[in-house]
């Protein structure tokens, strides 16, 4: 019986179906290997760090189970960072979506110099992040802010030193809004370009037909355009969520999480704990809290995308 079963398996391997499978998986293997090496290995390594007492001076460390996660959950700074991260990601995502859509429609219409304008709007996205953020740091400066200077000249705020002189990076709510604003400023051209790519792929006759049928602009957008460009929108949203959630540079350069943790987000807390303080294990645990935040969002997006394809 066993012998006949083995013979059966062996003979299956000789069938054209098996060969087709083998050929297919062989072609797929490099991509799988690539993903495993570039994503899987670092992820498993950070998981290992998060479950160990590794420090920068002793990366080979003992297993501590979930202690690092517990330590993070015991810290009030962590909860503040978690709340800020969610607010920052969701708020910036919504604003980038709105502004990006508006910009995409503006750039879709023909006008003189459209090509030049299209090239110019991507500048914030293409500038080195350190340069652009330092520029904003100056614009938000407590004493020499050009924004405040302009507002003051327009009689919208008082003069320097008066109680209604905004300290953009010093007042807790304003500071969080300011770092979010810079993230939006930097990211919304990307949203616009993604949307623009989608919009240009929509056959104009379909939109015209909807117009003839009496559909308003919003109806055309919601019922005709969005369903047609949904795959592009989903991929763009996925990218943007990942970029925003893991954005360390803007907060690090503008406020470093201050004042009193008002702008602290999980990436800055993880960096300051894991790298600057050297507690690699705890830093990795803090950064891994991003994973359960991202995973459901990504699964939802990709599943919706697949359903639409079917």
């Amino acid at each position, binding site marked *: 019986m066993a012998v006949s079963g083995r013979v059966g398996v062996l003979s299956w391997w000789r069938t054209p179906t098996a060969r087709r499978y083998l050929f297919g998986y062989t072609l797929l293997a490099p991509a799988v290997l690539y993903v495993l090496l570039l994503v899987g290995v670092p992820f498993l390594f950070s998981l290992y760090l998060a479950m160990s007492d590794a420090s920068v*001076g002793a990366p080979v460390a003992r297993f501590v189970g979930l202690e690092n996660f517990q330590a993070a959950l015991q810290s009030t700074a962590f909860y503040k960072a978690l709340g800020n991260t969610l607010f920052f990601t969701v708020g910036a995502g919504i604003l980038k979506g709105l502004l990006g859509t508006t910009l995409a429609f503006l750039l879709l219409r023909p006008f003189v110099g459209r090509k030049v304008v299209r090239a110019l709007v991507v500048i914030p996205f293409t500038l080195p992040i350190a340069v652009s953020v330092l520029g904003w740091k100056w614009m938000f400066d407590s004493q020499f802010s050009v924004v405040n200077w302009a507002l003051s000249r327009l009689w919208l705020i008082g003069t320097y030193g008066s109680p209604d002189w905004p300290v953009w990076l010093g007042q807790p709510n304003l500071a969080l809004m300011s770092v979010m604003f810079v993230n939006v400023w930097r990211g919304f051209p990307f949203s616009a370009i993604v949307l623009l790519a989608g919009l240009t792929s929509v056959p104009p006759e379909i939109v015209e037909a909807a117009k003839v049928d009496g559909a308003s602009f919003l109806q055309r957008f919601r019922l005709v355009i969005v369903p047609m460009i949904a795959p592009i929108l989903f991929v763009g949203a996925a990218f943007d969520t990942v970029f925003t959630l893991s954005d360390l540079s803007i907060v690090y350069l503008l406020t470093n999480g201050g004042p009193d943790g008002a702008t602290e987000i999980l990436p800055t807390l993880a960096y300051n704990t894991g790298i600057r*303080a050297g*507690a690699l*294990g705890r830093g990795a645990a803090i950064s891994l809290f991003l994973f359960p935040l991202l995973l459901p969002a990504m699964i939802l997006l990709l599943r919706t995308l697949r359903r639409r394809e079917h």
Partner: protein
Amino acid sequence: MTRDQSRWTRQPSTAPSTLNRRKFLSVAGAGVAGGSLLTMLDARQAPAQIRGTSLRMLKWSHFVPAYDAWVDKFAKEWGDKNGVKVRVDHIPHLELPARYAAEFAAGGGHDLIHFAGQILTGQYYRHLVDLSDIATGLGRKYGGWMENAKSAGQVGGTWYGVPDFFIAIPLLWRKDLFDSVGRPAPKTWDDLRTAARLLKPKGKPTGMQFSHCNDANHNWRALMYSFGVKETDPSGQSVAIDSKEMREALRFAKAMYDEGMTPEVFSWDDASDNRFLASGVGCWIHDAISAFVTTKDTNPKVFEHTYVLDEAQGPVAKWNVGEPNVWAIWKFSKNIPAAKEFIQHISDNQKHAMTASRGYNMPFLRDQYKKPMPVLGADPKLSALQEQDKITAFFGHPGPMTPAAQEVLTTFIVPDMFTRVARGAAIEDTMKWGVGEIRRIYAKHKAS
């Protein structure tokens, strides 16, 4: 106490013994021999084994660019003389910890490294070369190390780092503004508070950072230590910040903020107070002398009226909190002999380094405080800084700069405590939060 904890316990100093004739002769003989050796060392030649090698070193981009230019030239000349190809890399000081973590993980990188502000000797000592021979030799040659230098360079009594210099953070105050409200030259924190209270209504407030930056960590610690606050016990193992002195320091800071500052201090970075002084608005700031030096160029009128106080006296003590800089060598360095030779050479040329840094780099070795010191001794406004060795402490005081103290520093718990109180939080609530966070960090380090 674990083995690692015991490493941080300070070594007891040797008690002085009675001097008899035999001892006197042996000490005198050793002194003469030592003197001859010192003369020989002065004219030391680097060993032939380093000839034909190369040396890569990593330093931060110094706040005084002229110093970086000097170091690069100095290193090149030393390299040319000794047949060593030298390369000096400079990166922003806040990027150093990430760079060292990467070099350590890769097991390769620079042959000679420099810790700036964030002293990582305690993190990496297992992987750093024992530099006791150089440090002990320098100590003997230059009258001994400042007591706090050991905190920067030693772990368990062994020198894994050689202290290079520290940056003093004194007080820069405007004499004309103090005169205008009839206040004499400040000596104490109370004097500073009073002046700020009188000058703020005239549009000339003061400011100290309440934000997440280096200066916030130094400035508030200076106030704390002057009020008698101890961050830990002298071994660095037990948290000691939960004290009436800390509550007093918080109360004082709150009053000083309410009376003499504006909310902009919550947004300041390390350079904001420099600009604040140079703009002519600030009546006093607590910052390195770079603020003083740059004001000379940016606003000579303000500079003319700006004076320097080594530090303000508190109710209990007078402590300035410096920013230490330390040399270290990885065990995986490809050129340990050349790296050690360079440390020795630049330490022997501290006076030139201090001149190149315009008096910014303060020495750790006692004899290098002989007056007149370079730059400081020649400037009456800066001459008060010539005794900075007697009043300088570093973070973690009076304990050493352990990895736990480092984590408390980098997570800005101390400035955040002051921020909360300044914003109106109750002192007891703030103490409960801050002490809880600090204890949690120390407990994690003890457990690991």
